Structures are given as structure tokens and as C-alpha cells.
């Protein structure tokens, strides 16, 4: 056997596959991304608002305020996750046939996984970025208009982006950068399960799969 034998699928190839796939199915990608944007902007909006309010009216030292913040973060996170998981699940399952075809032509399980994870990463990143910026902007502007001192609010709100060393992990969540990271992680996890199941099917099983 010669040395050059063996299937190849370098990361650069996987990346261009994922990028093409997003471009070719732009409508589908937009729908998936919209749910990420909505979820993350909702999360960021709630957390930013909560943080502004707690800074203006006492540093969240009261048990009631902390509890309220926790409750808000959990609910926002749940809603955001459900939306992302649902749309990632859809976008993977409607491509089982394509997965089957790729496997017939020499794709290995890991290659299939790579393509879907890179796609999820890109969608999570872009969606998270838009969502975080949108959520943060809306929360800040909203507060600035309804509260007494807009300048103060913008200062507090802007500092959220760099607020890394907070001792309270919940406060950390109010950092829009963390929300973007969260978006990527949720998108990856959401794509991982269906993509893993699909990648492990035999080619004919994947080809037969009806959504």
C-alpha cells in the first residue's frame, strides 16, 4: 500500500464546507441565527437591566435583590437555550440525507461532526454578537430614558463589558462578552447531540431517515 492512501479532510476544508453551507442555506441560517439573536438579546437585556438597577439602587447586597437576579438569569438562560437547541436540532435533522451521502463518498464520523460543529460555532458567534450588542443597547437606552441620570447609566452599562473580576458569578453573567461565549457554548452543545447521532448512523440509515 502506498503512503498517500487514506481519506483526508483538513480543517480548512471543513471550514469552507461549513461556510458554504451557511451561505447556500442562508434563509435557514437566518432562522437559526434569529433564534440565537433573540435568546441572547433577551438574556443580555435582562441581565444588563438588572445590573444597572442594582448599581443605581444598592449593590445587590440584599437577599431579595440577589434572589431576584438569580431567578431572572435562570429564566432568561432557559428561554434562550430552548430556542437555540430547537433550531440547531432542526437544522441538523433536516440534513440527515446529506450526511448519509457524504458518508457514502468517504466522510468519516469525525468529518461530519466537524462540519456541523464549525457551523454551530459560526452561527453561535455571529448570533451571540448581534444579540449581545442589541440586548445591551436596548437595555441601556431604555434605562437612560426612564431613569434620572442617563450619563450615569451609560457609564455603568459600558463598564459591564469589561467587568470580569466580579466575585459574584451572577454579576459576571451580566457581561455581554460572557453572553457571547454562552451563545457559542449553547449552540455547540445543541448541535453536538443530533450531529453525533447522525454521524454514527450507517450511510444507508442516514439516507433513509425521514424528518
Amino acid at each position: 500500500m502506498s503512503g498517500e492512501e487514506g481519506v483526508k479532510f483538513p480543517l480548512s476544508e471543513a471550514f469552507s464546507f461549513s461556510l458554504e453551507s451557511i451561505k447556500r442555506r442562508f434563509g435557514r441560517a437566518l432562522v437559526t441565527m434569529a433564534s440565537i439573536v433573540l435568546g441572547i438579546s433577551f438574556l443580555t437585556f435582562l441581565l444588563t437591566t438588572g445590573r444597572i438597577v442594582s448599581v443605581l439602587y444598592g449593590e445587590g447586597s440584599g437577599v431579595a435583590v440577589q434572589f431576584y437576579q438569580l431567578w431572572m438569569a435562570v429564566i432568561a438562560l432557559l428561554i434562550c437555550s430552548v430556542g437555540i437547541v430547537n433550531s440547531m436540532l432542526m437544522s441538523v435533522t433536516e440534513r440527515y440525507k446529506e450526511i448519509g451521502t457524504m458518508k457514502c463518498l468517504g466522510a468519516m464520523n469525525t468529518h461530519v461532526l466537524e462540519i456541523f460543529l464549525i457551523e454551530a460555532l459560526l452561527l453561535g458567534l455571529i448570533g451571540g454578537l448581534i444579540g449581545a450588542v442589541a440586548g445591551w443597547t436596548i437595555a441601556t437606552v431604555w434605562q437612560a430614558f426612564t431613569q434620572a441620570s442617563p450619563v450615569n447609566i451609560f457609564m455603568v452599562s459600558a463598564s459591564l463589558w469589561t467587568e470580569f473580576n466580579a466575585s459574584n458569578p451572577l454579576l459576571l453573567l451580566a457581561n455581554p462578552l460572557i453572553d457571547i461565549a454562552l451563545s457559542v457554548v449553547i449552540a455547540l452543545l445543541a448541535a453536538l447531540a443530533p450531529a453525533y447521532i447522525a454521524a454514527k448512523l450507517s450511510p444507508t440509515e442516514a439516507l433513509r431517515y425521514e424528518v
Partner: protein
Amino acid sequence: MALRYEYAVETEDLAKYYVMGPVTVRALDGVSVKIRRSEYLSIMGPSGSGKTTFFNMVGGLDRPTRGKVFIDEVDIASLDAYELAWLRAKKIGYIFQTFNLIPVLTALENVTLPMVFTGVEREERLRRAREMLTRVGLGERLDHKPGELSGGQQQRVAIARALVNDPVIVLADEPTGNLDLHTGLEIINLLKTLNTEKKVTIINATHDLKMIDVSDRIFWLRDGKIERIETRAEVAVKEIE
């Protein structure tokens, strides 16, 4: 230089059962055959006789319920994931009954796909895909997506994709099923040329009598079993009688 094996494909008591509640469908039921290297073989049988199932098993696309498949005298159940992927990417070219083209890719891109996995350079991929599509008469349709092509044109894209990596075995499931007489003949000639010039082993399921004329042997399949095996001479004699 690769070793010369006498048989390209061998099956041993190959069976595939589908259990559906109380019913067991014996799609393939104990098929033992030997297919020589560079043989041109046709498989005939009524709808539902197990032709596609046979292809899937021989091509390493699905796991049999029982029995073994040997490609170049290696039991494919013993291959690791890497070797199996290589078998699918390089050694075998599949022409599917249902084409299985990727809808968002153009004809050209669909044909380049198998070469991605065998590590062919991008430019070379495009060049070869263009050449192959031209050979099947689709040189003018390179940038069309499958949805913009007729059934026969899609079939020819699938044929080009199967042949573009120079496989040593071609598994073709009704490759001329959607083609008119003329185009069908061209495809048969193309397969026959590969068979005689490049010594490619061709295994195809067909109802097309033109295909029988170029086949070395014909397997008759019925209810998942080999009913009989004939050489072309035997078939020809029968037709005269």
C-alpha cells in the same frame, strides 16, 4: 503495485433481515457469490427482490444481519473506520437508484465531492469533474443545482460522481433507469469502456436489455436469493429459441 486478486467481490451467506413488528422481511437471504476482477456483471430481478440491499451490503454502506463480504479478499467487517472510509471514497464508485445528490451544491461541486476525501487539489478536482461531466454529456450544465436538472441529467451527474475518482469497482443501481435510448447507450458504452480499458469491475442492477448485451454474467435475484446465474452466451441462446 497492488496484488492481483482473482475476485474483486465475494459474499458468503450474505443476509439482511428487516424486522418490522411481527413481520420479518428477508430482503437478502443467504447470497454466496464470487465476482471476478474486471467482470461486467448485471443483476436482474423484480422490484423488491433485494438488488439495492445487495449493493448496500457489498458497498459497505450497511451492516448485514448475517454473512460476510470480501472486497479484494478482505472481509470488510474487519476494516477500521479509516479503511472503510477509504473503500467508499476511492475503491468503490456508487451510482444510487435515488441519485443522492446534495441539493445545495451545483453539478460540478457534487462531482468534486468524492475527491475532497481522497485529498485531490482543488484545481485538479474542478478540472477532473468538468471533464467527467462533459463525458456524460453535461458539459453545459456544470453550474446547475440538482433541482434545476431533469431526472436523466441528475442520474448522469450521479454517474460522473461515481466514476470521477477512478474506482476499481463500480456499483450501479439502475444506472440507465431514467435515460432515453440514446443517452442510455452512451452510458452503457462508457461503463463498458471503463471495464475493458481500465479493468474496472462493474456490478449493476438493471432491467435494461441493452445492458445484458455487454454483461459477462447475469445474476437473477428473487426474494433475496440467487435464482440462477447465466453467462451472456446462455442468455443469447435463450433469446434465439
